[in-house]
């Protein structure tokens, strides 16, 4: 099983022109460390809202592909968003959950995803394409399938918590993240 860092970095390195919303905590920091780009929105607070933000973008910009980098703790916190996404069914939304079964950013306290299967919740909510991956090969294979299927898609990547120091904090000020991301969306609309 990959560590969370390996899993996040492997998927982040597959990104092309997608817009991504990164959930609160280490997820933002890992993505910044491995593939910082204007189309990344680092949501440093408001835990639990990443999928809802992704949904808002996906509804407002149907021609863009929106990827949410979420965690098990934050999905469980904003569980109602699965119902909205499954029901509204934006085809351009990809929800990737890095599931290490803990709140890693606060010291690895357990969530409930060891016993609650988040991919089964996504299926029940109406996501059109759902995959569960436990290895690098399965993750990359699922990613390729997702990008060629109609969404909303849900990819659950089971991983283990990292040992050692986390990546550095998000460097940009929140206002600068907003400005940079809006510009990236604007630029992608023109191309």
């Amino acid at each position, binding site marked *: 099983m990959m560590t969370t860092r390996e899993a996040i970095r492997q998927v982040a390195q597959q990104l092309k022109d997608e817009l991504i*919303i990164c959930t609160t905590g280490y997820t933002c920091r890992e993505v910044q460390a491995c593939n910082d780009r204007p189309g990344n*929105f680092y*949501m*440093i*607070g*408001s*835990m*639990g*809202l*990443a*999928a*809802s*933000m*992704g*949904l*808002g*973008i*996906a*509804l*407002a*910009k149907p021609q*863009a592909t929106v990827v949410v980098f979420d965690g098990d703790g934050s999905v469980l916190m*904003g569980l*109602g*968003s699965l*119902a*909205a996404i499954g029901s*509204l069914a934006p085809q351009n939304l990809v929800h990737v959950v890095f599931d290490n079964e803990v709140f890693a950013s606060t010291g690895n306290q357990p969530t409930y995803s060891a016993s609650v299967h988040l991919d089964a919740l996504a299926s029940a909510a109406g996501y059109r394409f759902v995959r569960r991956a436990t290895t690098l090969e399965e993750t990359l294979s699922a990613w390729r399938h997702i990008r060629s299927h109609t969404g909303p898609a849900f990819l659950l990547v089971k991983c283990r918590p990292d040992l050692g120091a986390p990546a550095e904090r998000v460097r940009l000020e*929140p*206002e600068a*993240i*907003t400005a940079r*991301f*809006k510009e990236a*969306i*604007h630029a992608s*609309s023109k191309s």
Partner: protein
Amino acid sequence: MVETAEGCLEALKGRGFNFFCGVADSTLASLIEELSRDPVGYVPATREDLAVGMAAGAFLAGRRPAVLMQNSGLGYCLNALTSLNLIYKIPVLLIVGYRGYQGKDAPEHWVMGRHCEALLREVGIPTLVPGSGQVGSAVAQADGIIRAQGIPVALLIRSGVL
């Protein structure tokens, strides 16, 4: 003069608001009905903070969002408003049913009814409480603040105003 939900929607659209989501409230039922009939539409959320998140996404994608809710949902939204909207300068118009105004409501609305105006202002969210016939001008005033400052603004709508 704006007193009907239809007039309120015209005022909102006239000011460029073009993405509406939220959680249902009886005070705003007529406005939600108008929105649902209108091409601009209304997206139901499962909880108020998730609506604020959705609206933030819509803003990043170039829309001008408004979130409808009852003031009982403001508590859920405080973290979203303070750790997302206010620090990222992501504006949203909050259209909030003002339950418990002057204590004349069911017990579950007493405490939030007494404190919601002060609560919003304390965290730095400009808050307007229009009377009958004042909703249109309040929408215009809120829009001015949003355009100038890029922050959330709340309209508290009392029973009977719409």
